[in-house]
């Protein structure tokens, strides 16, 4: 295993789904169900059984829109306000309308959702306006349940293949070039449509522990989706809207104050006082968190030690079994106990992830990117605040839309020269006898991301980052050296990380205003609605470098009243809020 072999195979399929985590399996299932004759291939660089952000499951749905508890109008309004209004509402509205059907389907797969004594969904209120949070008592079974469905539907699964570039021809997608992670053999897959479900760019910033893989996101999600879409010519939206999350310091897993919130837990400063009104994430909430960390009242803590034993035990049961189960080990090792003391929190390194913020490969309400035949869903597609249920729902939309698309098309032609060029690029680190290992290329890129791109954003620092990135990129292209195919996978990931770092710097420099609280806090510029109430769309420019343009926000489907717009703007607890409690 892991030796580097020479070889290139070619296969054909109707629909190629890249990424077997959350959105991918659902896209493949829905496509196959809509047209059982279609040849659907699901590609995964690890093994579909346990791959992706939810490898150990999920503790609940953050954004369920269930009739009787919330309406699509209300949800669309909530997400619009939480993102400073810079959203196309159609994809959010379509998600909100269709997600309940997906919940029912997941229920049939054997994934249970919490119900109250009357048998009704036990939905909790965490957001400012509506009620959307639904716990999942057996959330640890999600991946197993999905895998059973994939086997039942006879989806062709290709594990251990990592897509490296998309193929295009006649202005549409033609397939993908892939390398085997355990043999470096190449596979060219011709497809009439491609659905990208490659997750977040979770290895962009460097966690302060210095441990490359101690990231907030599953580090297997290293930004390939963003990088491949970019090189294929698709547009990416609002990449300056970074993802930054509150977390348990050093452990770097989610603090889940929104899980503890409905049970009485909250985020506090060192005095044990509440300082934000609501634990639902937004850029402004993260700005308040950051200010508290930097101010005299830091650090920031998760406060549960005022709660009853039964309540703490229940919170532990939820937080220590699913999603990140080593959290319990972490607390045991540190000798920290929710009952006895507050738990120190911090903010995460930066990343790209539409799951929690608003950036990603641009898609419309049909999960369609700006490149014909190419669809995207989950954490890499820019449907804001999409989380796990968004990945499932938009994956389902992508699968059914792609089936409609392939009805009238044949394979697009592509240039075999592109495959040869890609082989040379990918295999270059295997052809050297000596050089710099991928982990050092990656460490340096990510250390520079922390030093120069992390908000508060400063123009001169970001320009320095661009210069230094060019130096590291040059070293990556001329000196990177790998000994086996596993390291080659890491080398390819280092290249995606580098592309994402370039895109983050370029997108942030383009938007000369501050927006989304901490996510794009550009200290030299204030918020400026007049010039910047727009999306920014990045594509690969003629010179091979990122190029940005403005794009209008589509007219709203659900109008926002003036007095509602501020719901997410004022997050800090004031003396009046305290008095009202």
């Amino acid at each position: 295993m892991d030796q580097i072999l020479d070889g290139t195979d070619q296969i054909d399929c109707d629909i190629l789904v890249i990424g077997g985590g959350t959105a991918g399996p659902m896209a493949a299932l829905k496509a196959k169900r809509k047209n059982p004759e279609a040849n659907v291939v699901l590609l995964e660089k690890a093994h579909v059984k346990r791959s992706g952000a939810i490898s150990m499951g999920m503790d609940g749905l953050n954004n369920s829109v269930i009739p009787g508890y919330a309406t699509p109008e209300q949800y669309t309004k909530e997400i619009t306000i939480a993102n400073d209004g810079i959203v196309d509402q159609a994809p959010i509205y379509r998600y909100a309308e269709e997600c309940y059907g997906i919940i029912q389907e997941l229920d049939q797969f054997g994934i249970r959702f919490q119900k109250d004594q009357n048998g009704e969904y036990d939905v909790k209120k965490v957001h400012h306006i509506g009620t959307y949070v639904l716990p999942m008592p057996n959330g640890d079974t999600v991946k197993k349940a999905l895998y059973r469905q994939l086997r039942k539907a006879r989806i062709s699964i290709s594990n251990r293949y990592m897509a490296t570039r998309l193929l295009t021809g006649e202005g549409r997608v033609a397939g993908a070039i892939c390398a085997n992670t355990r043999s470096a053999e190449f596979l060219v897959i011709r497809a009439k449509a491609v659905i990208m479900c490659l997750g977040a760019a979770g290895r962009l910033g460097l966690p302060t522990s210095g441990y490359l893989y101690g990231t907030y996101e599953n580090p297997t999600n290293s930004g390939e989706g963003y990088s491949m879409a970019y090189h294929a010519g698709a547009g990416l939206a609002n990449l300056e809207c970074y993802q930054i999350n509150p977390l348990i310091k050093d452990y770097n897993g989610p603090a889940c104050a929104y899980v503890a919130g409905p049970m009485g837990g909250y985020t506090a400063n060192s005095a044990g006082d509440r300082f934000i009104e609501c634990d639902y994430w937004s850029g402004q909430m993260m700005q308040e968190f950051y200010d508290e960390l930097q101010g005299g009242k830091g650090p920031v803590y998760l406060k549960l030690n005022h709660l009853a034993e039964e309540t703490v035990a229940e919170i532990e049961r939820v937080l220590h079994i699913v999603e990140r189960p080593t959290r319990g080990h972490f607390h045991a090792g540190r000798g920290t106990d929710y009952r006895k003391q507050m738990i120190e929190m911090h903010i995460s390194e930066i990343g790209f992830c539409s799951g929690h913020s608003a950036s990603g490969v641009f898609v419309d309400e049909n999960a369609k990117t700006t490149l014909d035949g190419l669809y995207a869903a989950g954490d890499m597609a820019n449907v804001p605040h999409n989380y796990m249920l968004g990945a499932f729902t938009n994956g389902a939309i992508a699968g059914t839309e792609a089936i409609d698309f392939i009805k009238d098309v044949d394979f697009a032609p592509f240039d075999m020269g592109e495959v040869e060029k890609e082989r040379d690029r990918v295999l270059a680190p295997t052809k050297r006898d000596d050089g710099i290992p991928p982990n050092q290329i990656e460490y340096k890129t990510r250390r520079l991301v922390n030093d120069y791109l992390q908000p508060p954003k400063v123009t001169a620092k970001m320009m320095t980052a661009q210069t230094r990135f060019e130096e590291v990129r040059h070293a990556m292209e001329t000196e990177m050296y790998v000994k086996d195919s596993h390291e080659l996978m890491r080398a390819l990931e280092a290249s995606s990380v580098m592309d994402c770092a370039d895109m983050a710097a370029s997108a942030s420099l383009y938007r000369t205003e501050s927006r989304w609280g901490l996510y794009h806090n550009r200290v030299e510029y204030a918020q400026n609605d007049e010039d910047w109430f727009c999306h920014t769309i990045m594509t690969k420019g003629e010179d091979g470098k990122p190029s940005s343009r403005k794009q209008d926000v589509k007219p709203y489907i659900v109008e926002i009243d003036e007095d509602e717009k501020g719901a997410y703007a004022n997050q800090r607890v004031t003396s009046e809020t305290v008095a009202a409690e």
Partner: protein
Amino acid sequence: MPLAHTATSVPVTVNDDLCIADKGCTVCVDVCPLDVLRIAVKDDGTKTAYMKYDECWYCMPCEADCPTDAVTVNLPFLLR
């Protein structure tokens, strides 16, 4: 530019007495989302799983899915 071998304590440990890699089991190797585990041949010729690459997210599928409870996931020292 020679490459050095720098020692690192790795998070995943395997109890050789319980590991049934010798019987052909590769469950932990298969389920690791980062593909960092491999099977080694010991001095006596029998096989056992081990963590080959220090690229762990301490996410736990290897421990959870091991049929003989041979795998333990510890947090990396840098985070502990």
